[in-house]
């Protein structure tokens, strides 16, 4: 009886000791917390593992969505927020926040047309917008044919697939359509969710890839990694200089390098339709949002150290996951912004 009575106690004591030991060890390092964009989550977890190995400091990143990330940093419950859309300078000033980009990714239109391989079909911005507006409804439309001399396209109907959930991918995609199509800009506008004029909604990048693979004659948009992983045919796009470019790490980087960051206060610039000759037109980034005078200065210092590590030594991890590291010119602008805007 005695042993039975005691064994749970003994176990509890041992468990408490073990827990205390774990926390005790962790107490030497600093744990920082960030929350927001799900777009950046995969590379964030890879970076935080590498960073923890190097410094012993842990990053706890919650992929709760950009909106929630911004809300949480405004409440001051986390050390940094991450958002797919930049905050306006007025809003940043009101809350004493600053923001900077961290990593770049590409969004690609994907199609399911019998016999069309990745990169075989080309579109330009207005045609893409007209398809998503429901104005071009057949693949053999003369506007599409004019851009694809030599490619015979079937007479099938076009089915548009869009994201059903609010997302940064939709934000950047609709932002691009707004920049290239006045009709889109006035009717639909851009945002994490919009009223899609036509089509069906898939949940997440996986949902959209799955629908596009199932529906013959469909067109959707996903993050580049999903198009590669699921072997869906992507579309080459004509960019703002009139060049037809393919979605590659180089063309995403070209967009990040040629976007006009220097004249964008607080990096408040959405880099879709970037002016570079080789720039992929639907390139996206994610902004880190932090307090300029943080309540917890020690944590903030570690966060900056982490970002420095990510920007300067995290390129390989990013590339492995089909993200693109920021170009060196932008990194030095960001580090100058840190020095001038943040107290740390």
């Amino acid at each position: 009886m005695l042993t039975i009575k005691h064994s749970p106690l003994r176990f509890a004591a041992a468990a408490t000791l073990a827990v205390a030991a774990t926390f005790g060890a962790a107490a030497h390092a600093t744990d920082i917390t960030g929350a927001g964009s799900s777009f950046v989550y995969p590379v964030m977890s890879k970076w935080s593992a590498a960073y923890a190995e190097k410094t012993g400091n842990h990053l706890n990143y919650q992929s709760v969505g950009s909106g929630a990330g911004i809300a949480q940093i405004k409440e001051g419950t986390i050390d940094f927020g991450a958002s797919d859309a930049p905050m306006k300078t007025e809003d940043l000033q009101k809350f004493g926040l600053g923001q900077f980009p961290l990593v770049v990714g590409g969004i690609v239109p994907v199609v399911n047309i019998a016999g069309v391989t990745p990169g075989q079909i080309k579109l330009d911005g207005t045609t893409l917008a007209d398809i998503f507006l429901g104005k071009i409804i057949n693949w053999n439309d003369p506007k599409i044919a004019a851009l694809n001399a030599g490619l015979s396209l079937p007479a099938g109907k076009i089915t548009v697939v869009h994201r059903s959930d609010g997302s940064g991918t939709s934000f950047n995609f609709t932002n691009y359509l707004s920049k290239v199509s006045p009709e889109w800009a006035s009717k639909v506008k851009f945002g994490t969710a919009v009223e899609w004029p036509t089509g069906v909604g898939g949940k997440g990048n996986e949902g959209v890839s799955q629908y596009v693979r199932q529906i013959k004659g469909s067109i959707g948009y996903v993050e580049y990694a999903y198009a590669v992983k699921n072997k869906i045919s992507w579309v080459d796009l004509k960019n703002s200089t009139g060049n037809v470019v393919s979605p590659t790490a180089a063309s995403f980087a070209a967009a990040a390098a040629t976007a006009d960051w220097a004249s964008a206060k607080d990096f408040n610039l959405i880099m879709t339709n970037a002016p570079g000759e080789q720039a992929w037109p639907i390139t996206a980034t994610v902004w880190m949002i932090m307090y300029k005078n943080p309540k917890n200065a020690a944590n903030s210092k570690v966060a900056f150290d982490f970002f420095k590590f990510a920007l300067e030594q995290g390129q390989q991890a990013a590339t492995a996951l089909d993200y693109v590291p920021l170009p060196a010119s932008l990194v030095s602008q960001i580090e100058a912004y840190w020095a001038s805007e943040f107290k740390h």
Partner: protein
Amino acid sequence: MPAIDTVISTTDILEQRSRRDARHERLFRWLLKGCALIVLASLLGAAGATLWGGRDAFGTFGWHFLVSSAWDPGNEVYGALVPVYGTVITSFIALLIAVPISFGIAVYLSEVAPAWLRTPVASAIELLAGIPSIIYGMWGLFIFAPFFADHIKPWLTNNLGNKPDDGKLSWVAEHVPFVGKLFGSDYPFGASILVAGIVLAIMIIPFISSVMREVFQTVPTRLKESAYALGSSTWEVSWDIVLPYTRSAVIGGIFLGLGRALGETMAVTFVLGNAMHLSASLLDPGASIASTIANQFSEAVGLQKSALMALAFLLFVVTFIVLLIARLMLRRLANKEGR
């Protein structure tokens, strides 16, 4: 004297005991009341919180929120008609399919099946009820929706719909009102209101059929035996003896299933197509209240978030109305039977 002492002390003890009993009784009653109040408080709290969260949307759009089919975050215009319609119609389809099948399962298991088969099939049904809804959603998206698009949908659109592939209307589409519209569709894929209804039906069959089986077993054997003795067939016994005897519990089971169908989120989000358009066709994609909230809540801000909260409140209202109808039906049945 010692005798009197004993009497006094016995009365003391008795008095003490009865006082203690009364105290315990009071405590027990409070405890029970507390348990019941927790349910009431959480219900009122949730309804109140969603109403409060949705006040901006209700204030901005008023009654228009209920009848507008717009859902336009770009221009900040929101209406609940599409998701409310999608929720009600998918649940209705689910019931239409699930109730007869569940009845069949329950009658088979309680009246017809050999004894050795009853327990394994009953356990299998209970196991089905425990499968997480995301699994049904994945099955629906990856397997059922493509199958439906390839094999069932073409037949429906060509033979019943008003938009057949070859342009020739079938007899049914031409002569029976509404049917053509219900089955007409331009979209070449599976995810749709009908598929969502079918997947929901599969999800609620275990609930309804296990309740039905449970209550069918409570029917006294002598009633059934008497009916058999008078020459009734199994069908007549099930329909005229078993069902009337258990009617109110059966309706309770059906509404339990309906409740689950109305609030189902993940599975529906996968197979409903998530298009914010009002369409009469069952083969077109739609949206439900729960799927809209699941899709948009994480990235919503301002008025959009408020509109989603208002939708959540409407889900309470829809469920409440459905339960009210169930109560009224039960009362009318009871009156008819003179009970």
